[in-house]
């Protein structure tokens, strides 16, 4: 799991250097549907021009948070501020926010150009100015040649590009992306997510991106917030979130994690017979489950080793070896160079060792 995010432009500044984004602040948001608390005292701040991704399992409240910011849901409690202005009870159409939806949302009876011009017409922009802005936006998303096509004449990726152009055409204060890539196939998804990041950096609009795809979140966001049960578990840069999760939920949810039995000594832990440093927030002394990433383990063939290889897979850039470390049926995933995958035949005996990178320990042992 790696983040491919590059930040050639400082958040909050457009490519031409001008500050375009605004600050967004959600404070103490609560929203319930009967007994279900979709948002439970959610507080979130976005710096001007920042792209924040909200990540979490289904039902964690990420979409509800975005819809509250959009004005499509009313929070039961809490406050929503954009650029210092209280928008909590302002209707959606007065909020000046652009939104791209998970479902294809182009107006079917309009061409791509008419879709992009729609918001500008509502703002009573003169025809010539409107047409030129629509052309500029379609150019930005690489669809200037498709301007006269209707939604049904475009692919899913193209439709989402037009939806992005339509949302950006009105120069919104904040751009809201509600899982815009989830209906697309894998290749288009990667292409479009990089494009979204490029465009966001170019226009400098503060952006909230909701997704359940961790790779997507880590790849495009300045910061990623992991949500569970309507709360933010952790919000941090992708690198920090991955390497220093604050709890086992975040560690488990972001990337692949092995849960290994170990012994915590406060700042270090003994696991697989070796000592490794512990991250802040780890369990105090005692038996613990240590959360170790696959790339923070090494595996070596050892005829007298306690572990047994269960399977080995070639995954392209790297390989994956699944090991039972002590014959107890536990499965540990180890990342290995792709060239050495063939060395680990199922049934081979091996020794596992941690690389010494810090890990998180949680109290108690699984099972």
């Amino acid at each position, binding site marked *: 799991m790696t983040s491919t995010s590059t930040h050639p432009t400082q958040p909050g500044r457009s490519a031409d250097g001008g500050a375009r984004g605004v600050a967004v602040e959600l404070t103490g948001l609560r929203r319930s549907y009967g007994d279900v608390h979709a948002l439970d005292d959610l507080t979130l701040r976005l710096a001007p021009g920042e792209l924040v991704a909200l990540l979490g399992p289904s039902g964690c409240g990420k979409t509800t948070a975005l819809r509250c910011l*959009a*004005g*499509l849901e009313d929070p039961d409690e809490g406050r929503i501020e954009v650029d210092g202005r209280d928008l909590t009870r302002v*209707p*959606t*159409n*007065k*909020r*000046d*926010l*652009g*939104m791209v*939806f998970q*479902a*294809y*949302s*182009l*107006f*079917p*009876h*309009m061409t791509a150009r008419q879709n992009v011009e*729609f*918001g500008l017409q*509502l*703002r009573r922009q003169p025809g010539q100015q409107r047409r030129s802005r629509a052309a500029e936006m379609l150019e930005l998303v690489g669809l200037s040649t498709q301007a006269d096509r*209707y*939604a*049904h004449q475009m692919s899913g990726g193209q439709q989402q590009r037009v*939806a992005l152009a*339509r*949302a950006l055409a*009105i120069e919104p204060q904040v751009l*809201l992306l509600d899982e815009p890539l989830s209906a697309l196939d894998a290749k288009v998804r990667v292409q479009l997510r990089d494009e979204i990041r490029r465009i966001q950096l170019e226009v400098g609009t503060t952006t909230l991106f909701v997704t359940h795809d961790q790779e997507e979140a880590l790849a495009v966001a300045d910061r990623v917030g992991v949500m569970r049960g309507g709360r933010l578990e952790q919000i941090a840069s992708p690198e920090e979130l991955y390497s220093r999760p604050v709890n086992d939920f975040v560690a488990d949810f972001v990337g692949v994690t092995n849960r290994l039995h170990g012994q915590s000594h406060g700042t270090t832990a003994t696991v697989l017979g070796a000592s490794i440093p512990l991250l802040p927030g780890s369990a105090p002394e005692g038996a613990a489950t240590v959360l170790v990433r696959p790339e923070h383990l090494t595996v070596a063939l050892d005829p007298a080793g306690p572990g047994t290889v269960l399977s080995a897979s070639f995954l392209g850039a790297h390989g994956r070896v699944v090991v039972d470390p002590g014959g107890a049926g536990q499965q540990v995933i180890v990342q290995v160079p792709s060239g050495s995958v063939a060395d680990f035949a199922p049934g081979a005996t091996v020794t596992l060792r941690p690389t010494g990178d810090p890990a998180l320990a949680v109290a108690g042992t699984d099972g």
Partner: protein
Amino acid sequence: MSGQRASMRRRQDLFRWVVVSLSLVFFGLPLFSMLEFTTRDAQGHRTGATWSALADFGAISTRYPDLRAGFIASIGLAVLTVVVMLVLLVPTMTWVRLRLPGLGRTVEFICLLPLTVPAIVLVVGLTPVYAWVTYFLGGNAIWLSFAYVVLVLPYAYRALDAGLRAIDVRTLSEAARSLGAGWGTVMLRVILPNLRTAVLSASFLAVALTLGEFTIANLFSRTNLQVAMYLIGKSDAQISVAVGLASLVFAFVILFAMSFVGGQRSSASPLTRLNRLTRSGRRKETA
């Protein structure tokens, strides 16, 4: 194997032709009989006298004043019924779909209820209501449109429901709202254009039903086209039947005209679109 398939295809073709022929006979024979009856004189000789008399609208209006009044009333009733039905149903159904999906079943039940109530029973129920309608608005036949809206509700509901199911109303309206559109703009510029086929179908059904309605108008002692034909039939059967045939042709012309005018931007023919909507209602109509 291919021989069996060819034989099955031949049988299907034959069956199709039999069904089409029977349908043509079923619908065409009465019309042909009407034409036959109106083109014979008392001695059985072929004549165009009845149709010539009907073509002279000024003279026939003077001779049968009820016919003129009934014709004008039916046209007015059709227009007002369509307008009231659309104004009532389209926003309500859209709103229920967007904001009160739990009420969908109830609205459907209410809209389909008139199917189960015979017109005669409806009249009994509406009599006290129409006493007030007459008191406030007068006794003009045009106010029968309120009763006709109730009559067309089940058919119009089905047509509009199929249209609403074919588009993602929630996402489209939310997208429009996020771009700055108020609810009026959402309805007029986003929802309605995408419901064009459904609105047309609902309107066709309303027009067809209104132009053919007799029971309620007769029982309320109002004169529409059907009542006028009934009254003329008592004194001149040939004119009455000729008017009946003409009104059928007129209804077809109106429906086709509505279809062409309302569906100009669609590449599909009016019949194809009507068939498509009534067949599934789920297929997405594209602009």
